């Protein structure tokens, strides 16, 4: 492949320009979190400034921020665990004991995602109200796990099918019961896929906004609701908001960085194969 140094330079420049351009808003938010409020709104926008941690301490001092952060963690993890608990057996049965209805069932599960949440906003709101689930973490965990279940099942199904069926048959010949087959052979082999699925589920739940905004108010609100409450600002507060946003976003960005290869594999299994 002919590749002159000019072409490579152009490529590198283009690549980095695009990457930095896209990442810029996040970078800017991150920088702003270390500015004073005055500096934050200065025009022209300040690129060089003296960094301060005052904003971060201000955020942590707000008791409700910590509460919201904890809520986000609990809801994301809880919904993911619940979804996995339901999806692993379902995906296992569909991947290894397929019947005539398997493909139809899978497609049907995916089709439930086509239901726009807004279409059932009213009944869910009323149901949750009557069941006492409004503004509770359990209520959010339930809704989030249902929202994410089709995707989790789909992904696990795909990952399970990647395990060669002959390996499972070999374990059967070696004397494994279905339970042993699942736990000692399938799960270890499918672990990377399960991890990727769990990661994606956590990300989706963490960033979930629609139900968090509508079904919670004070006690169970997550960080999405918290950050949304700043949509109508009073006074100068952007630096603090940037700090809060950075804190809200950083964990997921870190997860994403660590698991990016797995995530990419997971998300693209259906598309690439």
């Amino acid at each position, binding site marked *: 492949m002919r590749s002159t140094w000019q072409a490579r330079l152009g490529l590198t420049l283009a690549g980095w320009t695009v990457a930095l351009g896209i990442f810029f808003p996040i970078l800017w938010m991150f920088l702003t979190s270390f500015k004073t409020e005055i500096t934050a709104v200065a025009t022209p926008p300040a690129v060089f400034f003296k960094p301060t941690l005052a904003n971060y301490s201000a955020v942590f001092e707000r008791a409700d921020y910590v509460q919201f952060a904890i809520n986000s963690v609990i809801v994301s993890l809880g919904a993911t665990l619940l979804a996995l608990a339901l999806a692993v057996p379902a995906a296992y049965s569909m991947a290894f004991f397929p019947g005539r209805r398997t493909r139809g069932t899978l497609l049907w599960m995916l089709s439930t995602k086509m239901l726009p949440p807004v279409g059932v906003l009213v009944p869910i709101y009323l149901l949750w109200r009557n069941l006492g689930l409004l503004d509770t973490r359990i209520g959010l965990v339930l809704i989030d796990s249902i929202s994410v279940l089709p995707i989790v099942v789909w992904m696990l199904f795909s990952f399970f099918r990647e395990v060669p069926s002959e*390996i499972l*048959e*070999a*374990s*059967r*010949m070696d004397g494994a019961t279905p339970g042993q087959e699942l736990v000692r052979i399938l799960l270890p082999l499918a672990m990377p896929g399960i991890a990727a699925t769990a990661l994606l589920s956590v990300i989706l739940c963490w960033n979930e906004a629609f139900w968090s905004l509508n079904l919670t108010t004070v006690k169970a609100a997550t960080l999405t609701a918290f950050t949304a409450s700043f949509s109508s600002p009073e006074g100068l507060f952007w630096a603090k908001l940037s700090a809060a946003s950075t804190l809200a976003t950083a964990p997921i960005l870190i997860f994403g960085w660590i698991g990016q290869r797995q995530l990419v594999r997971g998300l693209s299994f259906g598309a690439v194969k």
Partner: protein
Amino acid sequence: MATVELKNVRKRFGSHEVIHGVDLVINDHEFVAFVGPSGSGKSTLLRMIAGLEEISEGEVLIDGLSAQRVPPAKRGLAMVFQSYALYPHMTVAENLSFSLRLAGVPIEERERKVRAVARTLEMEPLLHRKPRELSGGQLQRVALGRAIVRQPKAFLLDEPLSNLDAALQAQMRLELVRLHRELNTTMIYVTHDQVEAMTMADRIVVLNDGRVEQAGFPLELYQHPASLFVAGFIGAPKMNFLDVEVKAATEQSLTLSLFHGISVTVPAPVRSLRAGERLKLGIRPEHVDLAPDGELQGGIEALEHLGPRTYLHARLADGTRFVVETAGDTSVREGDRLALRIRADASHLFDAAGRSLTGRGAGKAAERHQAV
């Protein structure tokens, strides 16, 4: 050490039947090869014996007892898969001992057995490696070892050598035969390669399209094929086939007319035939001679020099392809036109349905499924 018996075994996927009533007996200590083209059902049959596939109809008996309700692990059989199917997340030693661990065998005994098998297969230095670090031949041996460690009543091998390169295949074939003699255990071996079957097996079962075409000793299948299919499948290069028509029949002989007025006389077949009946005449390449007074004329299109032998690929006057075996130091060259003579008493005759009309037990052989 076990006998395996199949009685009228049928397999259906939905309404589509793929195995049509197979009856078979595999004796204790035998090395039996299931051989046939892809889709003939040989792997399916093996998997039904193993218990990995359900039987739609019929019975599988192991040591005289029905295996119907017995799960694969309890049948006392061990399987070697085509893809080896080793557990990638376990070491070789763990792969070998997995079945023992599941059965609750104590550690010392487990280790003893694993080491014994590793010694037999010369795998000792590999015990702590993982499958991804091993070569094809090594993987194959681990798969074999995993089966041996279970001390099964019978081994089921599903095309175990097909993923190896040619040299390794030849070597492993000998090793498997040696192993069979050493372990003295029943082995059922599935392959699509008839050379493997011929060289390794005590008995061969030829399958085609879900049916047993013929079962018997290798030489028997070679010399007395019961059907057109078996005749064409066993033996390389393939048997030559000519379309013939019955001209005249006597008590002792049959005169057949080929094309262009050529006729050939062969020994009388099993049943009487009428004039005008269309048949197929089969003759193996080694039973054709180059003789100046031969009935057939052929132009040599290509030669295969194998060293000790040469195969001449000829084309007859009516366009039929014909393979003739001759000496390795033949002086025949491409483009020569030669006269060929068929050794009539070594020829095979097949009727329109493909059944053999010649040979010992011909006509009956196609219906014979039991062992001799």
